[in-house]
C-alpha cells in the first residue's frame, strides 16, 4: 500500500512538472508569436520601444554570460559595441556596401579583436581583469579619435540608415535579442554550460575534474564579443550617429550592469526583465532633466536593497519560479 502511494505521488509529481513545462512552452510560443507580429498590430512607438528592449537585452545577456556564468566581470563590453558600430559606419558610408555586411563585419571584427586582447587580458584576474577591460575600451576611444580613417573624433553620421523603417530595424533587433537568449540557453544546456556551472561552484575542483578553465573562459569571451559586436552594429543602425567617446564610453557598461543586477545575475530571465525596466524607465526620464540620473540611481539602490539577488533571483527563491530553466529533468518512467 505504501509503495503504491509513493508511485502515485511520483506520477502526480511528474505529471505536474510535465504540465508546467508544457504550459511554459505554450506561453513562450504565444509571446514569440505576438512579438513577431508586433509591427502589424502595434503603433510605431511600441515597435521602437521593443526594438530597444531587444538590443539592450542582448547586451545584458552577453554581460551576464561573462559575469553571471563565467565569473568574468567586464567593464569593457563597450569595446565591441564601438567596433560593431564603426564597422557598420565604415562599410556603409566609406565603401557604400550593404548594411547586413556591416553588421556581420561588426561581429567578426569584435571576435578577432577579442582574440587578440584575450592573451594579455586573461593573465589578469578578478578586479585587475575588470579594470583591464575598461582600460582597453578607453584606449580604443583615444585611438579612434586620432585615426584619420574613421574621421578622428568627428565620427560618422550614418545617413545610409535614414530611409530604414522602424519595422526593418525591429526585425533585426528581434533576431539579435531573441537569438542572444536562445544562444545563452543552448550554451548552458551544452557541455560548455556544464563546465561553466562546475567552474562557478568551484574552479579548482572543476579543473581537477578535467575542465580546461582557460579554454572555457576564452570561448565565452569570444561568443560574448561576437554577439555584442553585432548588437553594437544594430544599435548604431538605430542611432545613426557615431563618435568614438560615446561609442566606447562606460555608459554602455553602466546600462548592462544595471539591467543584469536589477533583473537577476546568473539567470536567463534576469537580463530580459532588466532590459524592459531599464528601457522604459530611461524613456520616461528623458522628460525630467536634472533629476533623471538621481531617479535611476535611487531605483537601482532600492531594488538592490529589497531584492539583492535581483527580481528573478527573488522570484526563484520565494516561489521557485523559473521561466527558462536550463536544468535537466528525468523523464516520466
Amino acid at each position, binding site marked *: 500500500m505504501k509503495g503504491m502511494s509513493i508511485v502515485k505521488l511520483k506520477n502526480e509529481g511528474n505529471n505536474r512538472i510535465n*504540465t508546467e513545462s508544457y*504550459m511554459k512552452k505554450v506561453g513562450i510560443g504565444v509571446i514569440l508569436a505576438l512579438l513577431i*507580429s508586433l509591427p502589424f498590430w502595434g503603433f510605431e512607438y511600441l515597435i521602437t520601444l521593443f526594438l530597444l528592449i531587444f538590443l539592450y537585452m542582448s547586451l545584458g545577456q552577453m554581460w551576464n554570460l561573462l559575469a553571471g556564468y563565467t565569473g568574468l566581470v567586464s567593464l569593457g563590453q563597450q569595446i565591441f559595441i564601438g567596433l560593431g558600430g564603426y564597422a557598420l559606419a565604415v562599410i556603409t558610408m566609406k565603401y557604400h556596401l550593404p548594411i547586413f555586411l556591416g553588421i556581420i563585419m561588426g561581429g567578426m571584427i569584435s571576435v578577432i579583436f577579442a582574440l587578440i586582447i584575450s592573451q594579455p587580458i586573461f593573465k589578469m584576474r578578478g578586479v585587475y581583469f575588470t579594470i583591464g577591460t575598461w582600460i582597453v575600451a578607453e584606449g580604443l576611444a583615444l585611438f579612434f579619435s586620432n585615426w584619420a580613417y574613421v574621421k*578622428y573624433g568627428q565620427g*560618422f*553620421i550614418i545617413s545610409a540608415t535614414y530611409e530604414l523603417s522602424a519595422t526593418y530595424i525591429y526585425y533585426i533587433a528581434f533576431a539579435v535579442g531573441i537569438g542572444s537568449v536562445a544562444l545563452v540557453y543552448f550554451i548552458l544546456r551544452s557541455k560548455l554550460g556544464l563546465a561553466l556551472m562546475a567552474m562557478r561552484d568551484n574552479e579548482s575542483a572543476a579543473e581537477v575534474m578535467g575542465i580546461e578553465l582557460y579554454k572555457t573562459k576564452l570561448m565565452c569571451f569570444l561568443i560574448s564579443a561576437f554577439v555584442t559586436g553585432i548588437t553594437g552594429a544594430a544599435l548604431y543602425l538605430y542611432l545613426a550617429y557615431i563618435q568614438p567617446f*560615446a561609442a566606447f564610453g562606460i555608459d554602455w557598461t553602466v546600462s548592462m550592469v544595471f539591467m543584469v543586477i536589477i533583473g537577476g545575475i546568473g539567470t536567463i530571465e534576469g537580463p530580459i526583465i532588466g532590459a524592459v525596466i531599464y528601457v522604459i524607465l530611461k524613456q520616461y526620464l528623458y522628460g525630467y*532633466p536634472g533629476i533623471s540620473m538621481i531617479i535611476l540611481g535611487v531605483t537601482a539602490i532600492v531594488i538592490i536593497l529589497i531584492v539583492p539577488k535581483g527580481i528573478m533571483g527573488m522570484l526563484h527563491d520565494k516561489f521557485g519560479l523559473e521561466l527558462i530553466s536550463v536544468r535537466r529533468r528525468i523523464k516520466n518512467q
Partner: protein
Amino acid sequence: MKKSTMYRVTTIVLALLLCFSLLFIAGCTQKVSGPSEGTSINLPEKDAILIGWVAPLTGPLAQFTQSIKFVEEQALPIINKDGGIYIEEYGKKLPVKIVWADSESNPTKASEAATKLALSDKVDFLVGSWTPDTINPVSAVAERNKIPALMENGPIESWMTGGPYHWAFGNVFSCEKMMESYIDVWDTAETNKKIGFVYDNTVDGVLFSALNKEKAEARGYTIVDPGRFPAGTKDYTAIISQFKKEGVDIVAANMITPDFAVLWKQFHQQGFIPKIFNIGKAMHFSTDVEALGGDLGVGLLSEDMWSGTYPYVSALTGQTAAELTADWEEASGKPADCTLGYDWSTFEVINDVYTRAQTVDKEKVRQALAETDLETSYGHMKYDERNISEVPVVVSQWKKGDKFPWEKNVLSNRKFPEIPISDEKLFFLPSSE
C-alpha cells in the same frame, strides 16, 4: 493532473489566439477601406502645436542651455497671446508648446530622446540645440521620421557630413570663416608669424586644427604642431616646452573649459606667455573666464557668436540685441552670452514658419521653413539649397569690464561687416615676452 487537462489548456490558448487573429484581421480590413461617402476625415484631437526640443540640459555642455528656459518664458506668452497660431485644418488658433528632452550632453541619449519625442509625444517639429553631439543625431531622427526640424549651433562642415538634408535645417556657423577671422586679427599685430597649436582630438579640435593649418599657411604663417591630445589631459609640459624652444608668438587652441584652465595655469607656471592666445570653445562664457581666477583671462581671444552689440532686432518683440541683453541681465544678474541670440532666433523662426504655413501638415511646414526669409535676433534667416542659414561668428578679446567683471571687444568682422568692431584694438597678453 491528467493529459486531458493539458489538452484543455491548449485548446483554450489556441482559441484565444484565434480570437486575437480574427480581431487583427478585422482591424486590418477596417484600415484598408476608407471613409464612406459623405463623411469627413476625422483629424486627431489637438490642443497645441508641439515642438520637441532636444538640448544638453545637463552634463558638460549644460552651460550652453543656460538661457533656454528664460527665453521660453519670455517668447511663448508673446507667441500664444490671443490663443496661439491659426491652424487651418482645425479652424482655430493653437498655442505653441515646448516638449523638452535632455540629451545629457550625450549623442546616444540625444538620438533616443529625439525618437521618443517623435514617436511617443508625436511632436510636430523638432529642435536640436548645441554642438554636433546634439544636432547630428537629432537631424538623423528628423530625416528618418520625416519631421521638419531646426538645428541651432554647430559647425557647418561637421553637420553637412550627414547631408543632403530634406527635413532638417540648420542655423549653423562656418569654421572656415571663423579661422579666417582669427588670422585677420593676427595680421593686425607685429609678430614672428609662428603659431603653436594646442588642439584636442575631439570633433572640433580635429576639424579646426586642419582648417587653421590650411588657412594660416596660405597666408604666410608657420605652424608648430605637437599633435592632437585627448580631452582630460593634465600635463602640457611637453607642448609648452616645444613652443618655448620654437619661440612662437601666437598660440591657437581649442579644448573644453576645465582642460584650458589647467593648460593656461601651466603656461604661467612654466613662464611662457605668448603675445597672442586664441582659445576656442573654452572661453565663450564670462563665468568661465571668471573661474580662471585673478586676471588670467585678460587678453584671451575667443570666437564670438552673439552679444548685445549686434545690430539685430527680434522678430517677436521688436527689441534690439542690446535690449534683449538688458532684460536677461536684469532678470538673472549675469552677463548675457551668445546663447541668448541663438535661442531667441529659434523661437522667432518657429513662430514665423507656423504663421505662414497655418497648418501642422509636416510637408507643408517643411516647405514653409525652406521659404523662411526673416530678420531675427541673430540676423537674416534664409535657408540655402543645403538647408543652411549661416550665422555670423567673429573674434573678440576678453578684458576687465565696467558693468560686469568681464567684457569683450570685437576685433575682427571682415566676413560679417554688419557686426560693429570695438574702438579698442588688439593688445598683447600681459606679461608676454
